[in-house]
Every structure is written in structure tokens, then in C-alpha cells.
């Protein structure tokens, strides 16, 4: 029952992901991404990683998707392909090369991996406490460095989006 459920959700996730890359309208493509991320959260739940499932929805389906939708609406992208002429074919060729390379890599990875039962997770696995213990002891330095990364993101956004203010006399 558990495996069947997992396969069903995983298959739906792949279908939604296909919707993301195949839909011509950028807004609908982004909404397919929301569906994909929600289904991915369901996969996490099925793998007993409840905390990660919730954070996945909050960060990706909530925050990052809002940014995506804002940017798409901000730029007012249309259905039609903006690239015309020779550049279009060059881009298509590059995309094909990248895609085929990724497919080969994936095939090699899958061939090397052994598929079997993952065994049952230990008690409390994937819960908040387990995540916290490893985050604040073993991975303390990466955690603190994350704040620097976030700081850089804020500064970058302000520099890009904010017009330089003229000094006022008052």
C-alpha cells in the first residue's frame, strides 16, 4: 500500500513537472511548478520527513513561487517566443546538448544504484528535533554562513531594484 501510494504520487509529480517545461504560457508553467512542489512535499511526507515537507511548501511553494509569479507578471512575458532568427536555433541546439548530457548522466546514475527497500526509519527521523540536532552541532558553520548568503541576497536586490537616491538638502 505504501509503495503503491509513493509510486502514484511520484508519477503525478513527474506529470506536473512535465507541465512546467511543456506549457507555453509562463504563468501557467509557474503554477504547474506550484503543483509539482506540493506533490514533492507529499513525497517527503510519505518518506516520514514531515518537517522537510512543511518547510518545502513554506519556502518553495509559498515564498519562491510568489517571487517567480511577481517576476513573470512584472516582465509581462507573452506566450510567443521572444527569440527570433539565428539565435533561436543556437539556443535550441545548446538546450538539446544540455538535455541529452543530463539524460545520459541520469541513466548512468540509475544503472549504478541498487533499487530496494529503504528499511524503516528510526523513531523521530525527519522530525524537527533530529533536523535541529544535526543543524546546530555538525553543520554549524554552514548554517552561520547561510546568513551571509542571505545578507548578500538582500544587498544585491536593493542595489538592483533601488534607484540611487540623490542626497537631499533637508
Amino acid at each position, binding site marked *: 500500500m505504501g509503495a503503491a501510494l509513493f509510486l502514484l504520487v511520484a508519477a503525478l509529480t513527474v506529470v506536473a513537472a512535465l507541465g512546467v517545461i511543456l506549457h507555453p504560457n509562463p504563468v501557467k508553467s509557474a*503554477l504547474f511548478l506550484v503543483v509539482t512542489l506540493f506533490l514533492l512535499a507529499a513525497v517527503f511526507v510519505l518518506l516520514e520527513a514531515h518537517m522537510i515537507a512543511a518547510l518545502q511548501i513554506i519556502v518553495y511553494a*509559498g515564498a519562491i513561487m510568489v517571487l517567480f509569479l511577481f517576476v513573470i*507578471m512584472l516582465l509581462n512575458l507573452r506566450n510567443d517566443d521572444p527569440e527570433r532568427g539565428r539565435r533561436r536555433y543556437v539556443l535550441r541546439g545548446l538546450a538539446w546538448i544540455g538535455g541529452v548530457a543530463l539524460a545520459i548522466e541520469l541513466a548512468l546514475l540509475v544503472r549504478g544504484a541498487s533499487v530496494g527497500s529503504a528499511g524503516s526509519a528510526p523513531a523521530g527521523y525527519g*522530525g524537527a528535533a533530529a533536523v535541529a540536532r544535526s543543524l546546530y552541532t555538525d553543520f554549524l558553520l554552514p548554517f552561520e554562513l547561510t546568513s551571509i548568503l542571505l545578507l548578500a541576497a538582500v544587498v544585491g536586490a536593493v542595489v538592483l531594484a533601488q534607484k540611487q537616491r540623490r542626497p537631499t538638502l533637508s
Partner: protein
Amino acid sequence: MLADRDSSLGPMKDLVLYLTDVAGPLRFAPYELVAMVAMLLFGAVVVFGFVLPVAGITSWLERRVWARIQSRVGPNRVGPQGFLQWLADGLKNLMKEDIIPSAADPWLFALAPYLVVIGFVATFAVVPFGDVLVIADLDIGILYITAVTGLVVVGVLMAGWASNNKWSLLGGIRSAAQIVSYEIPAGLSIFPVVLLTGTLSMQEIIRAQGWAPWHWFLFHDPFTFAAFFVFFVAALAEGNRTPFDLPEAESELVAGFCTEYSGMRYLLFFLAEWGNLYVIGAIVTTLFLGGWQVPPVTEHPVALAVFQLATFFAKAYFFVFVAMWVRATLPRVRVDQLMILCWKYMVPIALVNVVGTAIWMVVVPTSLGRVVAIAMTIGGAALVVIFFRRVRFHLRRARLGPADYYYSPFI
């Protein structure tokens, strides 16, 4: 998966175990099936027997309360005191045509109300009504609520974009910007409570408090007290309530993201808004006001469950009333004021609350903490007394005649 019989099924566990017992009336039925049906029934009772009526009745009560506050009468024709107004509104909208404008994107336009309504109904999965009365006591309870509320943002943006209307798009984007901005102070204001309890489960947070006000997290220390106010204000803003109802500012944006909606689909957005008020009240009650905790007066399980249910409902609905009161009293803020309030005041205050609570836990010993809790409870009671004295003072100063004092709850 369901074969684990010790697993929690909420209030239905004992019933299901009894029914499927070797001597039970449903011994021939598989345990999984009975458990599933029981869960479905309980969920249906909560949603159709509680969530929908509460959202509807709130819509009537809100208009009555505004009317009283603004010296009007309000809807009083349909049923006794206009009580059935919400059903009449529902019926009227049922009779309306479901218009999908020709310029709109039909699929997304039709889909947006689903996201908004599911985003609000799904929160009830973890809202506790009593010690055993909860659909699913997830160990990530409060985080789950934050996560599913994210659906509302996507639904609002979808409605605004799909309508293909200038007002709708602007309203949708404003609304999304507002909801996500205020999610930060609201999220940060949960931390003082999580720090104190060390859990995210709604039930565990309530169990860490007591029935008495000095056991509530509201009066635990000055930082939780401040966090309570930050959370409530941020939650009102997240629910697009006045004074933060800019996305629906009639004078600027017609009806915001639902300008092009009509009939039932229009009603559904408002169903979610009114129902969301109760969710806000329920979260505030859970986090800061001791939830369903009641004094130990009865041992009988049914009586206890009813008592807890009534306590939780009264506390949560008090905040629904406060939201109505705020809406009837305060004018709408401007967009710049909205953003400044969030990022320059509420986010820094919320951060100070988190850090302050953490330092408090390390520095202040338990005995002193108990004294502070009682002192803060007395302070809170004093604030209420001062409030009512001010009201009396203003009523006296207004030199009203006997006719002006006439008050009946039923007009």
C-alpha cells in the same frame, strides 16, 4: 500503514477499536475501512457542521455588530433578528449566473476559488477543539498552518491574473505582497511560544499551558505579551482585514482581485475571509491563551469535551469579535503605511521578542518567572479595568440623555 492500531485517530480511535473488536458490531469489516470512514465522517462533521455555519453566521453577526457600533440597525428582516440572513445571501448567490468573462483565462479563473477555500478549510485539520477533539494532531501543527495558508497567496495571484482586468491584477499583486510581508512578523511571533514549549504541535502547546490566566503564555513574560499583539495584528493583515484591506479598497480598486467574479465564486472568497477570522482566533487562543484548558471541575469524558469545546470556542470567537470591532472603528491605511508598519516596526519588534524570550529563559529562574507571570496577569486585569473606566468617562462627558443610553442587544 493503518494496521498499527495504536496510531492516533483522534476522537475516533476508541470508537473504531470498539466497532472492529472481535465481538464488535462491525467485526467482519476490515479495520482500515472502518477507520477511514470514521475519519471521513468526523472531518465532514467538522467542516459542514462547524466551519461553514461559523463562517456564515459570522457574516451576519459582523454586519450586526458594525451596525450597533455605528448606531445603525443592520440586517434584521430574514428570520429572528435577521439571523437567517447568511442563508438568504447564500441562496441568492446560488440563483446568480456564474459569469466567466470572455477575456479571462477560463481554467485559472475557475480554479482560483478552490485554492483559496482549500487553503482555509485545510487549516482546520490541526485546529484543536478539545483534548481529543482534533482531526489530526500533527507534530508540525503550527508549521502546517503556515504552509497551507501559502495556498491562499497562490489563489489570490491566480484570480488576479486570470481575470485579465486591471483592477484584479493590481489587487491580486497588492494582496500577495501584503500577505507575504506580514507572514514574517506573524511567523516570528510564533517563536516565543515554540521556544517555551519546544514543540510545534498545537495540542502540546496547549498542554504546556494551564486554565488559569497566569499559566497562559500571554502573561508569561513581557516578550510573549508583545508577541501576542504583533501576531494578532499581523494575522489581521494576512487575512486582508480592515484596517489592512487595501487589496479590496473599493474606492481605488473596485473589489480588488475578485472584481470580475460574480455569484457563487465571489461568495466563496468571502466565505474564506470570514472563516479565516475564526482560524486567526483559534491560533491566537492556542498559542497565547491556553486553548481548551479548563479548571478541573468534571471527570466525565463527554461533559469535559463539551466544556473544553465551549471554552475554546468562546476564546477564539472573542477574537473574531475584536476583529469586527477593529473593522468598524479604524480607517484603512495607505500602501506606504502598510509596508512601513510591517518592515520598520513589526519585524524588528518580533525579532526582539524572539531573542528576548530566549534570553529570558536562560537568565530568569523559575520562581521569579512565576512571580512575573502573576504580576503580568494583574497588570493585564488592570488594563481591562482602565479601559472600561475610560469608556464610562467618555459616556459621562458626552452628557447623553436617557434615550441615548437605551440599549437592547436585540435591535
